[in-house]
């Protein structure tokens, strides 16, 4: 499968995605503006609480081409963060430490972040600074090439927290979303991580799984799904993990394309809007996170990054990073934000309410 960008698909233009999200409904009228919705509960303009997490997207290259990918990642994407930009990220983190607003957690994502040639160097530098590093590992990368087979050991040596997607404990549902054979390889990779100590009691090596629905429906309650995943993965494959993060698919990029193509767009948006939860709105992740793009641009979150919505009210590039101004900014919102506030809420760390 090719990325939308490679297909020259209309949705590779973020402007067109935003047009779809803001368009009138077939029956007339529009979905209430997300900003107005926040206003009704006194949350507009939405302001950060305090910057705690740096989510760094080190590139869009990936060994997979999942159907729902909001990054539109894939083997044909060449955007990769340079060492120079990584250096600027490190300098920004040092600056924040000095300014008295230390950013403790660095969440590395992609694409497959491990495919960036400077990935290991970056993790080592972060580790030296005493930062807590999270890697969003797609699991199959560990088996994709012999040069990645030692990733579990590398992660372990640097105290990396591993967060991995597994949309279901059945091969059918997983492969439908992530590609043929992905389930089997993911299971093997999880067993390798377990063997390195990940997800094992007392090891301190955190292994979390991410569940997101393989289709146009909302995720169920995190506690029940976690229980279910733990039982099934233990029983069928003897796999252990720490927590399950339940994430709602946001209507952007390839998932938006899926929704439109399958005729589910209206129904899905309606569900998101109708499930708006004020408690989840108060805890959206953009309030304590900054997202850094592969080219060093700054965004309120990874989703805004994919929609080319850069931060407003603070310098827009990591080289000019200013934590005080970022903490004062108004967060850029649009209709896709309903995905973060539906039901029990959704963030890169799972449910929020």
């Amino acid at each position, binding site marked *: 499968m090719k990325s939308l960008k490679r297909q020259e698909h209309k949705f590779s233009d973020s402007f067109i995605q935003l047009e779809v999200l803001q368009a009138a409904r077939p029956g007339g009228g529009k979905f209430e503006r997300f900003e107005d919705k926040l206003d009704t509960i006194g949350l507009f303009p939405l302001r950060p609480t305090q910057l705690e997490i740096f989510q760094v997207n080190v590139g869009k290259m990936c060994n997979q081409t999942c159907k729902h990918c909001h990054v539109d990642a894939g083997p044909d994407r060449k955007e990769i963060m340079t060492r120079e930009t990584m250096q600027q990220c490190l300098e920004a983190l040092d600056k924040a430490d000095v300014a008295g607003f230390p950013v403790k957690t660095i969440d590395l994502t992609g694409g497959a972040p491990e495919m960036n040639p400077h990935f290991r160097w970056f993790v080592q530098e972060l580790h030296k600074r005493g930062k807590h590093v999270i890697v969003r590992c797609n699991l199959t990368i560990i088996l994709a090439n012999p040069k990645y087979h030692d990733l579990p050991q590398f992660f372990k040596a640097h105290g990396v927290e591993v967060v991995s997607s597994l949309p*279901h*404990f*059945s091969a*059918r*549902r997983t492969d439908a979303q992530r590609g043929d054979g992905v389930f089997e390889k993911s299971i093997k990779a999880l067993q390798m991580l377990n063997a390195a100590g990940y997800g094992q009691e007392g090891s301190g090596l955190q292994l979390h799984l991410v*569940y997101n*629905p393989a*289709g146009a*429906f*909302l*995720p*169920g*309650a995190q*506690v*029940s*799904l976690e*229980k*279910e*995943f733990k039982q099934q993965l233990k029983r069928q494959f003897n796999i252990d993990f720490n927590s399950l993060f339940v994430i709602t698919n946001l209507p952007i990029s390839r998932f938006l394309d899926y929704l439109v193509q399958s005729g589910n767009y209206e129904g899905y948006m309606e569900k998101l809007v109708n499930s708006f939860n004020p408690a989840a709105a108060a805890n959206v992740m953009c309030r304590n996170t900054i997202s850094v793009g592969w080219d060093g641009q700054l965004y309120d979150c990874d989703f805004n990054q994919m929609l080319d919505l850069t931060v407003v009210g603070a310098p827009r590039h990591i080289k000019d990073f200013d934590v005080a101004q970022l903490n004062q900014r108004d967060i850029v919102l649009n209709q896709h934000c309903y995905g973060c506030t539906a039901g029990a809420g959704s963030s890169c760390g799972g449910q929020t309410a």
Partner: protein
Amino acid sequence: MENTYYNPADLAKFGNIAEFSPDLAKKFFDYYGDVFKEGELSVREKSLIALAVAHAIQCPYCIDAYTTDGLEKGASEGQMMEAIHVAAAIRGGASLVHGVQMMNKVKEITM
């Protein structure tokens, strides 16, 4: 009346039954809500039972609702189909087991 007995849009109007009898509706929905809470059975198991019953009573609203609900609760396609087979087996078995009654009667009145 509409031209069809079943309209998918009516599913979302289930709550409207309160219009003609609010007290009973409230009792029913409170009960309904409690039944589907996590208990000795998990919410997923309850959802699968509901799906099986929906097929036994052949209610299109319930099939629609509990297919989505099953997916949301993490049920797999295999689990959902097995639940329906359970309903089918019980339905089929319920007919067949009465065959014993038929046989009893036959034996009673034949030489």
